[in-house]
């Protein structure tokens, strides 16, 4: 279980997270929705400690982070190993082959034997339909393929949660479908996930929980059925705004 209590993040001129209280249940897929600039990325990146809120408590399973204190490096590293991150623009390591991209963390962070890490990587590549690309470089693959590789990179660390920040926003619809298919499989295998997305169909079909964020505040926290079938006026406007 991930639990955030009274989490606050203030930029010089902007209150990006305003008293956030929310839970992301284990083995479920929570989808975060909200307009652009709402604070979705800031919220997600705080879970991986790429952003550091100024106050509040963050609990992930048996680990508790107090944002109001200076965090020890050992805790930062521990929390990051528990939370895999998939970025909008995938951010693969361009100088490493696909296999090395996936095994970099297991070998150098988790200190796994190389052979074992490579075996796991190959297994993951098969799962996302990219077996055979092991010895190529990221620049030789399409965006959709690179995003699937970056999902493998996160999975190889065997994290407790995987965080997706608009994983398909930079992709053509056809490539988007391939990536969403991988996410769907993960959701069905009970992988704990938090997904920021603008894809309403994915939210409706895959999410077990919806969190709607606006102006740094959580405006809705409930089931997809409530969200889509009994929207508040504001959510109704938001959903209408997503159509044309």
């Amino acid at each position, binding site marked *: 279980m991930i639990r955030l209590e009274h989490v606050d993040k203030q930029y010089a001129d902007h209150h990006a997270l305003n008293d956030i209280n929310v839970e992301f249940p284990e083995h479920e897929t929570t989808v975060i929705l909200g307009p652009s600039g709402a604070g979705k990325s800031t919220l997600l990146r705080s879970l991986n400690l790429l952003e550091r809120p100024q106050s509040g408590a963050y609990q992930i399973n048996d680990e508790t982070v107090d944002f109001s204190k200076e965090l020890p490096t050992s805790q930062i590293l521990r929390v990051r190993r528990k939370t895999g991150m998939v970025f909008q623009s995938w951010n693969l390591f361009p100088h490493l082959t696909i296999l090395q991209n996936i095994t970099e963390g297991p070998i150098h962070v988790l200190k796994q034997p190389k052979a074992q890490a490579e075996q796991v990587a190959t297994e993951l590549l098969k799962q996302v339909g990219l077996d055979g690309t092991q010895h190529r470089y990221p620049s*030789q693959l399409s965006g959709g393929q690179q995003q699937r590789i970056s999902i493998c990179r996160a999975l190889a660390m065997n994290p407790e949660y995987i965080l997706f920040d608009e994983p398909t926003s930079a992709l053509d619809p056809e490539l988007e479908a391939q990536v969403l298919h991988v996410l769907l499989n993960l959701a069905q295998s009970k992988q704990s996930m938090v997904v920021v997305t603008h894809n309403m169909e994915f939210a409706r079909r895959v999410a077990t929980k919806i969190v709607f964020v606006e102006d740094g505040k959580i405006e809705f926290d409930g089931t997809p059925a409530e969200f889509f079938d009994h929207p508040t006026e504001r959510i109704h406007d938001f959903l209408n705004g997503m159509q044309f």
Partner: protein
Amino acid sequence: MWNTIVNSTPEIFWAGIKFTIPLTLISFAIGFVIAVVTALVRISHPKGNPIFAGLWELLKLFLSFYVWLFRSTPLLVQLFIVFFGLPNIGIQFDAFTAGIITFSLNTGAYCSETVRGAISSIPDSQWEAAYSIGMTYRQVLFRIVFPQALRVALPPLSNSFIGLVKDTSLASSITILEMFMVSQQIAAKNYEPLLMYSIVAIVYAVFCTVLSIAQYYLEKYMSRYVQVTGE
């Protein structure tokens, strides 16, 4: 004239093997290490212990001063200060050592700016992706950022390297018997300055051309991952 060429070229070439090349290689190797260390210290942000952080800031200030100093004064003057000047305060080096020290510090100052720029050119998203899988600062720096930065830095570093080959001719002024000095000595004897200086120019050009070819292959190797073959 043919005889003069045949007699003096090997002598000049030999001076290159004995002094110009070692001066260049040793100075560049040391200079590169200085450059990397200087660049890494200058981009770092120490946290924690305030005394340590304060000392670190002082070190950064000192390194900025060093880079400024060696980039804003002529190399020839630096050579003179180290070889002819420092003995006045009791610090004495033989000519070759003085040459190595000066060339290393000089090329280190220039290359540190190259390395610093190359490291900053690697997008933050690479740091973030590496941090997100739990890597430490050091791992991110040396396993992810540095290899990519080196590719960016290679052309300007090669420029500095080739520049250094030619700059070692200044070592003649502090009594080092490198190629240019030898060609001067021969010219003084045979009254053929045009011929001698042309020969030495050609030998410099040969050395630099070999380096440029090496650079070409190194660049090709380091860029092996950028070529886009598409899908």
